């Protein structure tokens, strides 16, 4: 047993302990803190699995944004928590345990009896990498080989945001979402919100740029930008924009729209939807990624900000 394998085994045991705490803790808030720790440890697991692109996404979204979303929600919902005696009865819990154990056993069996050698699309991705001129195979898959998935995923993000907005009561429609915090403009939070975003924006753009040839890309860069925007809003240095603002909506649809236009252009210039002309593949992908980064940053930020809670013009 090598040291690295011992580290893996220890990490797996640790993450499982944290996961059990998340499921089993009595109160909600400690469970959420457990979940935030779980997301962080998961980042390490992804690194150990050699999936650095996924580790970056997990670090930014899994532990960062999701953690902030759930911690904020847990703190606000504390008053409405159901008392512990509302837990289901022993029989239901037993049945649930049996069902979950069966599912886990089936997945474990699938892991142990995976075909050997494993089926893989890596050689196909390597062969066609020259067509795009990008060095990062994951970006190639996201932006070219499976571009349809990525485009539709942008649409899903947009639909989720429409869903969140539509939860606002009628009179507030079109107003501002409210992470409105009247915090001290000279306090520590405002200090952090002035110092961190410039660094964060540089890092976000760097990660977007690095994504062409190394792990990184639009998702990860956009998430970091979203976090910086939210930090400035939380510190009360800027107001969240009213959801009816036209410029905001243009930013929100920029990513899928550019994707769609380029895709339709492929239909016209080349032979298929989303087929990039080989000579322009790399610049086209970069244009799409740039638009997508803006859209992702705006959408994720507004998803976290929640539905409109204040009337327009106040």
């Amino acid at each position, binding site marked *: 047993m090598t*040291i*690295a394998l011992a*580290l893996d085994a*220890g*990490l797996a045991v*640790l993450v499982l302990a944290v996961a059990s*705490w998340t499921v089993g*803790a009595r109160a909600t*808030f*400690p469970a959420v*803190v*457990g979940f*935030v*720790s779980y997301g*962080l*440890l998961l*980042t*390490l697991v992804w*690194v*150990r699995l050699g999936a*650095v692109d996924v*580790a*970056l996404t997990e*670090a*930014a979204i899994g*532990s*960062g*944004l999701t*953690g*902030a*979303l759930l*911690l*904020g929600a*847990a*703190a*606000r919902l*504390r*008053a*409405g928590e159901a008392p512990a005696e509302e837990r289901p009865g022993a029989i239901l819990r037993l049945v649930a345990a049996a069902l979950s154990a069966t599912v886990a056993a089936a997945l474990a069996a699938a892991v142990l009896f995976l075909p050997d050698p494993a089926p893989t699309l890596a050689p196909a991705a390597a062969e066609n990498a020259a067509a795009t001129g990008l060095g990062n195979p994951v970006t190639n898959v996201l932006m070219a080989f499976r571009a349809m998935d990525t485009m539709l995923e942008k649409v899903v993000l947009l639909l989720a945001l429409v869903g969140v907005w539509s939860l606002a009561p009628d009179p507030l429609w079109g107003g501002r979402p409210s*992470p409105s*915090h009247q*915090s001290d403009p000279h306090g520590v*939070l405002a200090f*952090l919100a002035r110092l*961190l975003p410039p*660094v*964060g924006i540089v*890092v976000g753009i760097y*990660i977007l740029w*690095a994504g062409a040839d*190394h*792990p*990184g890309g639009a998702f*990860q860069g956009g998430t*970091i930008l979203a*976090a*910086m925007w*939210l*930090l400035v809003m*939380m510190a009360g240095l800027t107001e969240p924009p009213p959801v009816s603002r036209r410029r905001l909506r243009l930013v929100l649809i920029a990513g899928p729209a550019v994707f769609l236009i380029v895709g339709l252009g492929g239909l016209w210039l080349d032979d298929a939807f989303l087929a990039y002309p080989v000579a322009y593949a790399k610049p086209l992908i970069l244009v799409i990624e740039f638009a997508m980064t803006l859209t992702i940053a705006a959408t994720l930020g507004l998803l976290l900000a929640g539905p409109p809670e204040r009337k327009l013009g106040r």
Partner: protein
Amino acid sequence: MADYLVASSGFVLAMVALGLVRVVRGPVAADRMMAAQLLGTGGIAALLLLAAATEVPAVVDVALALALLDAFASVAFVLGGSQAQAGGPDATESHEHGA
């Protein structure tokens, strides 16, 4: 050398994981958040050690992203807590139910 770095990565991780006992014991929310914060710093250190051990420089970028977003969740926690106690519709409403 790589083995030493992997082992130290495991050691740092084990240390901050022990700190997670505070998440279980509390007693107040701030204690739990502190344990999560220590885990964040330890996780960053472990990632950097792994990056050096495996010589994959991109792992440093992951640590960079974590360092940026580490503060973010804690800020949301503090603000969420102060918002819930400072009033707003939720605080008064829960009061009605208690009465």
